[in-house]
């Protein structure tokens, strides 16, 4: 997800900490699909631990008071929540811009009409492949593609602005031009092309999904050409393959500066993968006001700003450009969440990432490991 502001961050903040703009609400970890790159944690929250409708509504109000403008309703599959329409209504009542991130499995025409009436602003539809064979194999759900295409038509007919979100990797990158064409045909205003980011379940699938360097470069060229050709018709946001990059991404726009994430059972995370950092502890919305968690919570304070940095980040001219990259990736690849993201060319481990990316991208044997529901 991307956030852009055309003006500098305004002044009203506590002790120099800006208020968050975006909140990702993982309403549930349940999902009919089992995508091998799912960003949910390996240990998922069970249904009986999920927050109630009333608690979510309260969290939405607290978020709006704190300064959140954009709410992303996600999962798992958010349509698996029976109270989705009530949750959308509560979010709109709180004054939030409400975005549904969905596979569309479980969305009927009737339900879409109810979501429309409740004030849903925008739908973001995931795409696993451009045909049933690919999409159903990657999603691990027979018949899913057909249902998704039907739902896409209903979404557009209902008048919702649509973003098509294509997650691409070694197995389906050859379908990227067709995916862009599909988005145009669907009349999507916006498309996200994201090369798989290796967190969550995707970490188990690096051998099966890592793109080759040539594929990653080709994807960049295809997106650049399509952006130019489709100017004024469709906007394309692009998440490149970071194992093949020279510099890491500015994760979450900077730790604890832009966005926050709520798990199905109410934990407040600085990013969706933060639970992979064992030294962090997370507050729950049931125990503490959201504003206090954002401004004072230990997990948010841990990697805010630049004080936590080590060399080579500490003296690097890019330290406030990318903030040392992704903390979860530093944990996963360097074993130290305060290390320089090893994707960075200045990291002593960079050459290992390059070798690893190459080895994974040549792996022709490892099968897909699908996500498994709790």
């Amino acid at each position: 997800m991307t956030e852009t502001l055309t003006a500098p961050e305004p002044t009203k903040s506590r002790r120099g900490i800006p208020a968050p703009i975006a909140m990702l609400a993982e309403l549930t970890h349940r999902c009919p699909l089992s995508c091998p790159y799912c960003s949910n944690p390996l240990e998922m929250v069970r249904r009986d631990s999920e927050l109630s409708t009333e608690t979510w509504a309260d969290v939405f109000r607290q978020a709006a008071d704190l300064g959140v403008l954009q709410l992303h309703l996600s999962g798992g599959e958010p349509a698996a929540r029976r109270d989705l329409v009530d949750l959308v209504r509560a979010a709109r009542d709180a004054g939030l811009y409400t975005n549904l991130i969905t596979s569309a499995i479980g969305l009927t025409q009737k339900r879409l009409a109810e979501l429309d009436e409740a004030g849903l602003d925008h739908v973001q539809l995931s795409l696993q492949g451009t045909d049933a064979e690919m999409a159903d194999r990657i999603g691990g759900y027979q018949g899913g593609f057909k249902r998704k295409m039907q739902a896409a038509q209903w979404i557009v007919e209902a008048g919702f602005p649509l973003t098509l979100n294509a997650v691409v990797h070694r197995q389906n990158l050859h379908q990227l031009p067709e995916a862009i064409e599909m988005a145009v045909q669907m009349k999507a205003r916006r498309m996200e092309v994201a090369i798989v980011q290796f967190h969550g379940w995707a970490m188990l699938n690096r051998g099966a999904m890592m793109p080759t360097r040539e594929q990653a470069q080709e994807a960049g060229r295809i997106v650049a050409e399509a952006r130019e050709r489709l100017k004024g018709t469709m906007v394309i946001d692009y998440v490149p393959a970071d194992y093949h990059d020279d510099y890491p991404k500015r994760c979450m726009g900077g730790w604890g500066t832009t966005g926050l994430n709520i798990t199905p059972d109410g934990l407040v995370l600085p990013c969706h993968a933060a639970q992979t950092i064992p030294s962090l502890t997370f507050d729950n919305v049931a125990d503490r006001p959201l504003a206090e968690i954002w401004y004072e919570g230990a997990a948010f304070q841990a990697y805010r700003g630049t004080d936590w940095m080590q060399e080579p980040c500490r003296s690097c001219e890019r330290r406030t450009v990318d903030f040392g990259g992704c903390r979860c990736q530093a944990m996963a690849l360097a074993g130290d969440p305060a290390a320089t993201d090893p994707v960075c060319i200045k990291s002593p481990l960079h050459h290992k990432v390059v070798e690893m990316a190459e080895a994974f991208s040549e792996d022709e044997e490892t099968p897909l490991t699908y996500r498994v529901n709790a």
Partner: protein
Amino acid sequence: MPDSALPAEAVPVIPRGVRLHHDHVRDGWVLLAPERTIRLDPIGLAILRQIDGTASLGQIVATLAEAYDAAPEQITGDVDAFLQGLMERRILEVRP
């Protein structure tokens, strides 16, 4: 800069999924759109407030020129650049 100016009779429309919103925490106006939050300066806000789905670009320019006591030619350039910038990002539409 866009290649050509919008015609005066074009009617700008804020499409569904795009909303003007007062950000009470940061004390300013923003345009909320899919995955985008655009902070508005007073000029952008003044332009957007004239868009009601019926007023043409020419009418909007005339209204703003009078309100700000400025030459319509100068206002036209500002409005055109602002609107076309939003159109490129699919945040605004025009009816011919």
